[in-house]
């Protein structure tokens, strides 16, 4: 028999973490979406981010180093004892773009959450993920349970590639958010299998 004499429990290897990003404009429902599928109530962490660390690499460019404190909400899904999925909601405004490099490193993919009445808010996120080559889906949040605009019209206005899924979702609905995640994971899987071939 093993005795439990140690103060420290002998633990299994820590779970491997992976992450998915939820981006979108202010008030579009990112935290609500995270909370709809997270096994814990969404937590908030504050990060001080410097613009200098944001890939301004041009030599001789003496930049003023400014720091912004940004709150990120996140949730968690335990896949099994060796794998955890973290879902990060991140501010989508232009001026937060500098933090996305850091945040999206190692991310599997992203959901760009869009309010169809304010689609401009989602352009910075769309541009970033397109340039970065990160798989993403566009999810139009259905406020008051219905879409303010036709999905096809929104797709046209957003001008995303034809292979980027554009779906309607209700950020409050677990079933809807599950479905949105599955659409994203399918894109991620197709891409992984395409590369493996």
């Amino acid at each position: 028999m093993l005795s439990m004499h140690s103060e420290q429990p002998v633990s299994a290897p820590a779970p491997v973490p992976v992450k998915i990003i939820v981006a979108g404009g202010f008030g579009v429902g990112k935290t609500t979406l995270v909370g709809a599928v997270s096994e814990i109530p969404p937590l908030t962490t504050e990060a001080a981010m410097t613009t200098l660390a944001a890939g301004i690499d041009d030599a001789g460019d003496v930049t003023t180093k400014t720091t912004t404190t940004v709150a990120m909400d996140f949730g968690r899904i335990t896949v099994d004892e060796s794998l955890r999925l973290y879902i990060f909601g991140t501010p989508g405004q232009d001026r937060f773009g500098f933090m996305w490099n850091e945040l999206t490193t190692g991310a599997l993919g992203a959901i760009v959450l869009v309010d169809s009445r304010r689609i401009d808010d989602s352009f910075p996120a769309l541009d970033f993920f397109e340039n970065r080559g990160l798989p993403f889906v566009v999810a139009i949040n259905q406020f008051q349970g219905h879409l303010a605009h036709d999905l096809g019209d929104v797709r046209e206005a957003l001008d995303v590639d034809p292979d980027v899924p554009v779906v309607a979702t209700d950020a409050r609905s677990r079933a809807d958010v599950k479905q949105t995640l599955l659409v994203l994971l399918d894109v991620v899987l197709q891409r992984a299998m395409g590369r493996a071939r």
Partner: protein
Amino acid sequence: MTGPVHGEHERQSLSRPFLVGLQPSRDTVSVTGQGEAAAIRPYFVTQGRVHDDLSGFDTIYVLTPGGAAGLDQLSFEHRDIAALCRTPQSVVEISALLRLPLGAATVLTRDLAIQGYLAAGTPAVDPANDPSLIMRLINAVHAL
């Protein structure tokens, strides 16, 4: 574009990161009685070190007990983190649960990992190119 947006939790343009903690955070007061003190101490205990020099220590790394003895000799903050990690916690969770700014939580957590009090989990090597890992995620989301 939209006009100036207030809120979304950000505070703008402090010139030095280590001064961030000196700003009273508008929401530290509500959750625990320790909130106000915690607003200052993190950058004191990190001795001004901020997140910039922590490349390679990702904020989603999950920490478990590392087995080193002498936890009782650690600072309060280090001890709190070690205690929290008796169940595996990521750096972001440590940051949120102890109300430490992410940069400070990362510095302190890495200290503990280097000293053997915590063991940092292995990051996924290349999850985007790992179909079996992605299938496990798909199955888990289906099962929600």
